[in-house]
C-alpha cells in the first residue's frame, strides 16, 4: 500500500469470467489489495469485471500473477469501454426521467381525483395550481428525451413519433396553464404527465434490452494474447504488450499460452488449438517454419515464434474488420415500432389539425378549438403504441432467460421470427465442441483409478475430458506419487514401484492427438479414443426446425471427412472447409435468393457470419467474439432452445401485432369522442391508462409460454 501510495495510481479493468459467487467477490477484493502494487479492487459481478487501482509501474504480468495466485484467470480489457458507458448513461437518464414522471403522476392524480369528485371554486383552483407546479418542472425535465429527438428530426425536416408527443405535451401544458389562470373547469396536467410516464417506461425497457449487447471490441481484445515474452538477447526475455509487438521480434510462447501476434515457428514444435480461428477441433501440429496465428492456443510445448504481423495486421484483426462491416448491413433493419411511427406521426398531426380547423369553421372560437385539438393529440396517446413492442419483448426475453436463452436486443426477436433457413456451424454448435472419451465403461476399476489420478494432475483438454468422463463412475484416484507432466507427451508418475504414464500413444503421429494411452512400465494397458459428440438432441432439433418451415444446412470450417458423418446422421446438406470469408459469401448468396438466414455458430471464425445473418444464435460455450456477434445465446448442452426461441419469437411477434391492433382499436373509439369535444380530463385519463394496461397485460401472457 505504501509503495502504491508513493507513485501515481492508474486504473485498469480486467475481465474475470470465473467470478461465480460471493466467495469469489470476497476473495478477489480482499486478496488483491494484499499485493503491494494494488491500492484498491472492486468487483462488478453482473459484468464479471474487476476494476483495479494500481501503481503505475506495476507491469501487466505482475497484475495477472496477482489474480493467478488467488486462483483466477484475468484478461485485461482495453479502453474501448467508452461507448458502452455512454449507452449505460442513456439508460440511467431514462430511469431518472421515469422516476420523476412517476412521482409527479402519482401526486397530480391525487389532486385530480379530488377535482373530479367535485371540488369547486377556490379549492379547484388551488389544486390546479398545485398540479401546475408539479407538472411544469416535470415536463421540462422528463420530456427532454422526446424534445431532443423531435427537435433533431424537425431540424432535418423530417418527422418521427416524438414530434406529435412533444407538440401534444407542450400544447396541453400551456393550454392547461391558461385554463388554470382563467379559473377554467378542466386542466390536463395529469394527462400530459401520465403520457410521459408510460412512454418513458417503454423507452426505458427498450434501452435496458439494448444495453445487454455491448463491448464487442473489448471481447475481441480479450481473445488475443495480451502480450508476449520477447527475446532481448539470446538468453534473456522481457514482457512486451501486444500493441508494442513488431514484425521481426522473436517471442517465447509457453504451453497453454495464447499467441499475441501472427508469426512463423522459429524453434521447437508443438500442437496448436486452432478451433478459435477455423473451428477445427483436433489440435494441429506445427514445426519449424509453419505459420501460426494470433489468438490461437499453444497446447503442448514452448515454442519460439518470429513475428510476421502484429496488431491490426493479424488474421484475427481481419476477422474483426469483416465482422464490423457485416454488422453494419444489419443495422439498416427497420424495427416494427419505427415503421408504425412513420405512419402514425403524420396521421395524428392531420387529425389534430382537422379538428382545429373543423371547430374553427363551426364557429367555436380559437380557445375551444385549440382545446379540442389538444385533446385529440393527447387521446391518440401513443403510449399504448409505445408500450406495445417493448413490453412484449421484455416479457419474452425474461421468460426466455429463465429457459436459458439470452436475447441481446429487441429487434433480434423480430428478426428471429422471420427466418426461414438455418445455416449451422458444426464444431461446438451441432457438436458439444469438447472431446468426450469413448469406451470408459469397458475399463476395469483399477485402470480407471490410475487414469483418474494421472488425468487430474493435468490441464490438457484430453485429461480434463477423462476426469469429467470418470466422475460418473464413482472411482477413487489411485495413490500415485511424484506425478510430473511432460508437455507434448503426457503425465508420468510412480505407483508402487512401477512407472505409469498417460499420454500420446507410442509410435503414433503427433497429429492424431485424439487418442491417449495408459502404459505401465512402458507397456500399453489401455487406449482411449476421443470424439467430439453431437449434442444429444441435435437430430430432434433439426426435425423441429423443419416442422417450423425452416431448412437447415451445415457450414463448417472443418475438413469434409470430419463433417460427413454428422451431415449423414442428421440428413442435411453440408459445405466444408470454409474460411470466415466463405461463410460470409454463403450467407450473402442465400440472402440474394430471398432467404432470411439464421446463422448458428460459436467460433471466432463464425463471427462475421453471425454478424451478417438476418438473425444469429450462439451456444453459451462459444468464444467471446461469437457470443458478441450473435443476437442471442443459448446455454446448456441441448440444441432445442434454438427452436424454442424461434417459436417464442414468433409468438412475441403475434402479441406485438395484437397490441398494435388493440392500440388502433382504442384510437378508433377514442378519437371520434375527442373530435366531437366530448373528452373531459377524467375520460382521457381512464382511456389512456386503460389502453396501456391492456397492452401490458396482453404482453404478460408471454410469461408462461416457455417451460
Amino acid at each position, binding site marked *: 500500500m505504501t509503495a502504491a501510495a508513493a507513485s501515481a495510481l492508474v486504473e485498469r479493468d480486467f475481465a474475470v469470467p470465473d467470478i461465480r459467487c460471493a466467495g469469489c*467477490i470476497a476473495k478477489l477484493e480482499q486478496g488483491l489489495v494484499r499485493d503491494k502494487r494494488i491500492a484498491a479492487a472492486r468487483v462488478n459481478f453482473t459484468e464479471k469485471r474487476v476494476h483495479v487501482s494500481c501503481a503505475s509501474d506495476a507491469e501487466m504480468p505482475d497484475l495477472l500473477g496477482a489474480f493467478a495466485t488467488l486462483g483466477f484467470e484475468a484478461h485485461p480489457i482495453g479502453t474501448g469501454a467508452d461507448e458502452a458507458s455512454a449507452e449505460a448513461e442513456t439508460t440511467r437518464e431514462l430511469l431518472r426521467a421515469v*422516476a420523476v414522471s412517476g412521482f409527479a403522476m402519482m401526486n397530480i392524480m391525487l389532486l385530480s381525483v379530488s377535482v373530479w369528485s367535485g371540488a369547486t371554486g377556490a*379549492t379547484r383552483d388551488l389544486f390546479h395550481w*398545485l398540479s401546475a407546479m*408539479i407538472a411544469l418542472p416535470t415536463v421540462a425535465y422528463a420530456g427532454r428525451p422526446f424534445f431532443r429527438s423531435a427537435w433533431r428530426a424537425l431540424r432535418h425536416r423530417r418527422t418521427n413519433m416524438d414530434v406529435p408527443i412533444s407538440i401534444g405535451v407542450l400544447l396541453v401544458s400551456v393550454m392547461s396553464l391558461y385554463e388554470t389562470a382563467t379559473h377554467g373547469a378542466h386542466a390536463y396536467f395529469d394527462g400530459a404527465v401520465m403520457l410521459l410516464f408510460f412512454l418513458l417506461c417503454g423507452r426505458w425497457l427498450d434501452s435496458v434490452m439494448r444495453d445487454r449487447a455491448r463491448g464487442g471490441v473489448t471481447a475481441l481484445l480479450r481473445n488475443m494474447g495480451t502480450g508476449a515474452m520477447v527475446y532481448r538477447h539470446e538468453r534473456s526475455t522481457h514482457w512486451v504488450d501486444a500493441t508494442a509487438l513488431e514484425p521481426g521480434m522473436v517471442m517465447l510462447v509457453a504451453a497453454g499460452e495464447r499467441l499475441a501476434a501472427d508469426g512463423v515457428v522459429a524453434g521447437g514444435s508443438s500442437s496448436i488449438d486452432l478451433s478459435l480461428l477455423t473451428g477445427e477441433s483436433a489440435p494441429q501440429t506445427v514445426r519449424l517454419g509453419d505459420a501460426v496465428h494470433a489468438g490461437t492456443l499453444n497446447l503442448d510445448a514452448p515454442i519460439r515464434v518470429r513475428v510476421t504481423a502484429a496488431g491490426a495486421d493479424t488474421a484475427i484483426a481481419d476477422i474483426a474488420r469483416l465482422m464490423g462491416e457485416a454488422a453494419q448491413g444489419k443495422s439498416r433493419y427497420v424495427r416494427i415500432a419505427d415503421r408504425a411511427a412513420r405512419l402514425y406521426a403524420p396521421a395524428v398531426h392531420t387529425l389534430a389539425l382537422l379538428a382545429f380547423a373543423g371547430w374553427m369553421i363551426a364557429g367555436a372560437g380559437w380557445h375551444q378549438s385549440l382545446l379540442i385539438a389538444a385533446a385529440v393529440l393527447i387521446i391518440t396517446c401513443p403510449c399504448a403504441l409505445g408500450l406495445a413492442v417493448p413490453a412484449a419483448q421484455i416479457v419474452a426475453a425474461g421468460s426466455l432467460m429463465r429457459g436459458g436463452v439470452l436475447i441481446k436486443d429487441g429487434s433480434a426477436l423480430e428478426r428471429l421470427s422471420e427466418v426461414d433457413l438455418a445455416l449451422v456451424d458444426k464444431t461446438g454448435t451441432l457438436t458439444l465442441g469438447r472431446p468426450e472419451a469413448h469406451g470408459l465403461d469397458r475399463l476395469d476399476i483399477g485402470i480407471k483409478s490410475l487414469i483418474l489420478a494421472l488425468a487430474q494432475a493435468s490441464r490438457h483438454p484430453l485429461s480434463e475430458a477423462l476426469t469429467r468422463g470418470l466422475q460418473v463412475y464413482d472411482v477413487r484416484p489411485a495413490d500415485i506419487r511424484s506425478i510430473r507432466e511432460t508437455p507434448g507427451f503426457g503425465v508420468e508418475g510412480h505407483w508402487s514401484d512401477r512407472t505409469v504414464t498417460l499420454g500420446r500413444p507410442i509410435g503414433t503421429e503427433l497429429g492424431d492427438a485424439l487418442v491417449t494411452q495408459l502404459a505401465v512400465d512402458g507397456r500399453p494397458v489401455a487406449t482411449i479414443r476421443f470424439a467430439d459428440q453431437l449434442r444429444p438432441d441435435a437430430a430432434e432439433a433439426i426435425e423441429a426446425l423443419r416442422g417450423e418451415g425452416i431448412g437447415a444446412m451445415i457450414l463448417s470450417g472443418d475438413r469434409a471427412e470430419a463433417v460427413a458423418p454428422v451431415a449423414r446422421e442428421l440428413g442435411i446438406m453440408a459445405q466444408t472447409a470454409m474460411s470466415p470469408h466463405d461463410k460470409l459469401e454463403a450467407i450473402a448468396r442465400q440472402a440474394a435468393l430471398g432467404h432470411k438466414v439464421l446463422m448458428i455458430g460459436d467460433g471466432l471464425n463464425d463471427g462475421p457470419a453471425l454478424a451478417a445473418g438476418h438473425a444469429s444464435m450462439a451456444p453459451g460455450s462459444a468464444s467471446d467474439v461469437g457470443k458478441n456477434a450473435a443476437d442471442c445465446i443459448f446455454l446448456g448442452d441441448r440444441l432445442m432452445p434454438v427452436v424454442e426461441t424461434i417459436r417464442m419469437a414468433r409468438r412475441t411477434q403475434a402479441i406485438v401485432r395484437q397490441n398494435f391492433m388493440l392500440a388502433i382499436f382504442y384510437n378508433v373509439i377514442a378519437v371520434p369522442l375527442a373530435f366531437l369535444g366530448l373528452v373531459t380530463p377524467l375520460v382521457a385519463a381512464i382511456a389512456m391508462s386503460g389502453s396501456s394496461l391492456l397492452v401490458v397485460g396482453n404482453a404478460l401472457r408471454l410469461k408462461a409460454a416457455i417451460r
Partner: protein
Amino acid sequence: MNGLILLIPVALGLGLLGLAAFFWSLRQGQFEDLDGAALRIFVEDDQDQPS
C-alpha cells in the same frame, strides 16, 4: 381546508424525499451491479478497512 394546507406539503415532501433517495442511490452506483449486490450480503466484512 386547514388540514389540506398541512397535508399537501407533507405528502409532496415525503414523495420528494423518496425521489431524492432514489437519485442518490442511482448516483452512488447502487444499480450498476444488481446481481453482485445480492451476493455481497454473504461477504464477511468484519475486518477494518486498511486506511
